[in-house]
Structure formats: C-alpha cells, structure tokens
C-alpha cells in the first residue's frame, strides 16, 4: 500500500472514535431538556370496574422516577367514574392532583389504582456532572424505547 493510501485509511479509522467522543461530549455537557416538568399519569375510565371484576392489570407503573429540576412534578388525572385514592389524597372523578417534589428521596404511597395498592416515587438529584448526565440520557432513551 502506498503511503498516501495508508494515511487515508488511518484518517477513516479515527473518524468513528471522533464521532463517539463528540457524542459523549454532547451527552455529558449539553443542557438536559424535558418537554415538561409534569410527569403525567392517567387513571383510565373503568379502572375500578376492572379491578372489581378481578382484573389485576397494572394501569400505572408501580415505580415512577422523577428528577429534580427536570421532571419533578407528579401529575395524576382520575378519568375513572369513582374516587381514587392516591397516597396523600382522594381524587374525585375528573380531578387532577399535581404534586411537586423538592427533595430527593424515595416516597411510598398507597394507591387504589394499583393491584398491589402501593406506588413508589423515586426522586433523584438533578444530574450535574457529565457522567451522570450521560447516564441519565441513556436511561431516558432506554425507557422511552420500552414505553
């Protein structure tokens, strides 16, 4: 192989590495962005009737993850025909409950929309360091794919 061709091959070999580094740089340093601070979950119409009929299907995730400064507000809507108890409150049909979080912690709530009757909200600190931002983006990407 001529020296000119060898140089071209070396340059092409470096391109993927540069691309990976650029992607990591972006993921680690670019500001995190979410469409809304509200993480919305709806209790669909007929939930109570299904539960009474013995249907144990999970309508809401039993574990919800929120991130301070990004999506740190839990917004629940009761679209069912009967009142639903979510942790700290009772929600009438058609009512919404908007609960902001300001402290990172794991919160356990009772929830009648769950077969287990229990719901966990995990509130995490805002990812500030590059590595934690990369980790956050990767997890969001994975979760969005499985939704």
């Amino acid at each position: 192989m001529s020296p000119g061709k060898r140089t071209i091959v070396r340059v092409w070999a470096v391109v993927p590495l540069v691309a990976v580094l650029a992607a990591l740089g972006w993921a680690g340093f670019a500001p995190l962005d979410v469409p809304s601070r509200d993480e919305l979950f709806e209790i669909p119409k007929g939930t109570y009737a299904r539960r009474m009929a013995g249907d144990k299907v999970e309508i809401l995730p039993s574990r919800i993850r929120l991130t301070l400064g990004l999506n740190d507000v839990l917004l629940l809507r009761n679209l069912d025909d009967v009142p639903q108890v979510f942790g700290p409150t009772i929600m009438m049909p058609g009512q919404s409950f908007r609960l902001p979080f300001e402290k990172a912690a794991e919160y356990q709530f009772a929830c009648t929309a769950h077969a287990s009757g229990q719901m966990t909200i995990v509130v995490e600190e805002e990812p500030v360091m590059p590595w934690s931002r990369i980790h956050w983006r990767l997890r969001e990407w994975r979760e969005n794919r499985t939704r």
Partner: protein
Amino acid sequence: MRRSILAALLSATAMLANAAMPAATDALKAGVLTPVMAAPALKLQGSDGKPLDLERFRGKVVLLAFGFSNCGEVCPITLATLAGARKKLAADAVNVQVVYVTVDPERDDAAQMRKFLGSFDPTFIGGVGTRGEIEAAEKNFGISSTKTVNADGSYNIGHSSSIYMIDRAGGLRAVMPYGHTVDEFVHDLKILLRQ
C-alpha cells in the same frame, strides 16, 4: 408632564405583566387538586364540646389531618409542625383552624383529644365519634388506618399522614404529604389566606 405620563405607562405595564404572569411564589408547595371541589362532609363531635363540621370554619383556612393521641411518632411531629406554622403566622393565625380527627375512637374521647392537642396548641380542635362515624369520615377523605395488635394486647395504628388544606370557601384545595417543614406550611397558608 412627559415624565408623569412615562411613569404611569411604566407602572401600568408592570401591573399588566404581574397580572398576566402567575407569580412563582403563588405555586403551593403542597399537592394541588384541580378543579377545586367542596371538601367532603365531616360530621363528628369536636373536642371543644360542639358538633364538628367544616361549615363551622367557613372564612378560615382549615388544616385537617387524621391521627390518634397514643401515636408515638407521626402525629406529634405533624402537630408540632402545624403549631409552629400558626406561631409563625402571628396575627394571621386567627384565620387558620387545625382539625385533627382521631382514628382511635375506642381510646380517644373529647377530653383525651383536648388534652393531647392542647399540649401543642390550645386552638386545635379534635374530631371524635363512634367507630362508625370515624370510619365514614375516613372513607370520605380516602384515609386508611390499620390496627396492629401486639403480643401484650396493646395496639398501634398505622394511618394516612397527609394534611388536607381547605380554603376559606370550603374547597379542598391541596394536600400536604407528611414530612414538610413549618416554613413550607407558612408559605402555603399565606397564599391561601390571601385568597
């Protein structure tokens, strides 16, 4: 003349901007219910010897919670927090009423609740009644309480620990989960008292 017109224009612009933008300070720390609906019915006996219903406190902001006088942890912390908030509100505290409903009607009568609540703030009013009346109140507010009997026959009660915030018009506005500070209550109470 020009200066006064300019000042008036600036002042009007600032007022319009304030009116158009929801002030960040107006966001409650508590969880907010929308649309606002009337608080569920509460028909009990008060620890002050009078019938207890929420209509009695129309015009005041009511902080309503459930607990019991033998509670070792959650209730004392909640009541101390609410007492601290009233103290911080100073003169405005007269427009805030704390109502604490027992989940242990077998042990908590009016005298017991008066003694227990009075150790935190003498203005607090307890809600007592028969087992059936208490269960009706719990159901109306979505409260759960579970009795655990110990080997020696004594018992403890696990119960919902949130504080309902009822506005001056009797609307159930917000719910503060357990664990919030005096300052967070003061923040929200000031907003509710302005309305």
